């Protein structure tokens, strides 16, 4: 412990920052994709369209019953098969994350939509808006406003989950750090550094989420 070597972190900073960029990019795209697909699933379930609602519910429950690692492996294996060409592991895991996280986002969004009072929908229909228009202009804007803190919390979970790309060796923050750790035999420094960086971002994020929550309920 006495020979804690900070220089190994400084020397490899460019590599680590590149890895961190991959982590953030993956998180951002997966959050956007997950919310879009999740909203779609939630709307289908709420609209109670026969068969479709059932399929959406089955999708959500199915993905929520699986470990993320297994989903990552599946997509890593399947995506090249469908596209007929190998894709970088980035796109494979991105698709895996979107499909997986959409199941969780859809549950959050469904709860958010349900929290908008029925009267609002009736009011929308009464002024002559169609059902999709009512959803688009009246229900979703209110629902999303109230959901922001929860969506942010889920984004933090997703940010942590992206570390699982380790299993297919995509060079995200953790994998870059591990690369350095193995090469320079500096496990202690690198893994502690990784933990501290993740902690700072996640803790800051969760404080902000709590702040938003308080502002909303105030």
């Amino acid at each position, binding site marked *: *412990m006495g020979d804690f070597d900070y220089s190994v972190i400084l020397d490899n900073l460019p590599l680590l920052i590149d890895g961190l960029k991959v982590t953030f990019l993956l998180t951002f795209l997966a959050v956007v994709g997950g919310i879009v697909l999740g909203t779609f699933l939630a709307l289908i379930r709420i609209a109670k369209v026969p068969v479709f609602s059932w399929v959406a519910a089955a999708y959500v*429950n*199915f993905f*929520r*019953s*699986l*470990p*993320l*690692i*297994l989903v990552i*492996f*599946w997509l890593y*294996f399947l995506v090249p*098969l469908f596209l007929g060409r190998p894709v970088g592991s980035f796109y494979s895991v991105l698709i895996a994350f979107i499909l997986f996280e959409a199941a969780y986002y859809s549950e959050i969004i469904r709860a958010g939509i349900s929290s908008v009072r029925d009267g609002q929908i009736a009011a929308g229909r009464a002024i002559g808006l169609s059902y999709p228009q009512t959803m688009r202009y009246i229900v979703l804007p209110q629902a999303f406003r109230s959901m922001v803190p929860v969506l942010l919390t889920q984004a*933090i979970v997703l940010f*942590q*989950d992206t*570390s*699982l790309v*380790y*299993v297919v060796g995509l060079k995200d923050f*953790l994998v870059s750090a*591990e690369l350095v*750790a193995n090469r320079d035999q500096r*496990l*202690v420094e690198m*893994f*502690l550094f*990784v*933990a501290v960086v*993740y*902690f700072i971002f*996640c*803790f800051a994020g*969760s404080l902000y989420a709590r702040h938003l929550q308080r502002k909303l309920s105030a």
Partner: protein
Amino acid sequence: MNYNWDWGILFREPYFDWLVEGLMWTVSLSLCAWVIAFALGSVLGIMRSCSSRPLQLIATVYVELFRNVPLLVQLFLWYFVFPELLPDDAGRWVKREMPMPALTTAIIAIGLYTASRVCEQVRSGIAAVGIGQRNAGKAIGMNEWQVYRYILLPNAFRIIIPPLTSEFLTIFKNSSLALTIGVVELTAMTRQIEEYTFQGFEAFTAATVIYSVVTFTVMLLMRVVERRIRIPGMIATS
């Protein structure tokens, strides 16, 4: 597609045994980690809701620390970093003499991580019982320990059965992370079958079905339990 489907591979020796063995490791790992998570999480949850400031602070720091670092990173910290920080002899013991180092480490890491989540559930359960019940207990002359023992906890635990079930299922799913430090649980076994036989579809499908079946079975079971011990007039929201 030029793929030779062979679903029989899953039921042939030794691959069937591998799947069974993998599932056994997954289940034992999950159960052991759950014991740690539940016990420690309950204690922390009580600490966070009790009247002692220092105890509250300790529990809060624990929760923030363990919740804001990815589980995989925590697993690596316990497996690679922790033994190096110990005195030489103890570190050597952890790395070499300790029974099943990878499995033990995974149980502890996943247990401690999930404890922070269980703590939050227990705390919200205690909050859901309500301040009125707490005050009522005090009014009839109970001390804080008695209030918890006889009023708050029996009610709180019954309220939080649904979220605790989902925490257990989270452990069950998270146990797959143990493959990154070499524990050959269900997901690792699946990959092993793929590696030996090249029958990847069949192997991945088997694991998918097993995970889903176990998850849905646990959910159904717990729904029955929940119905039987529900507190009249209270519905848990998670």
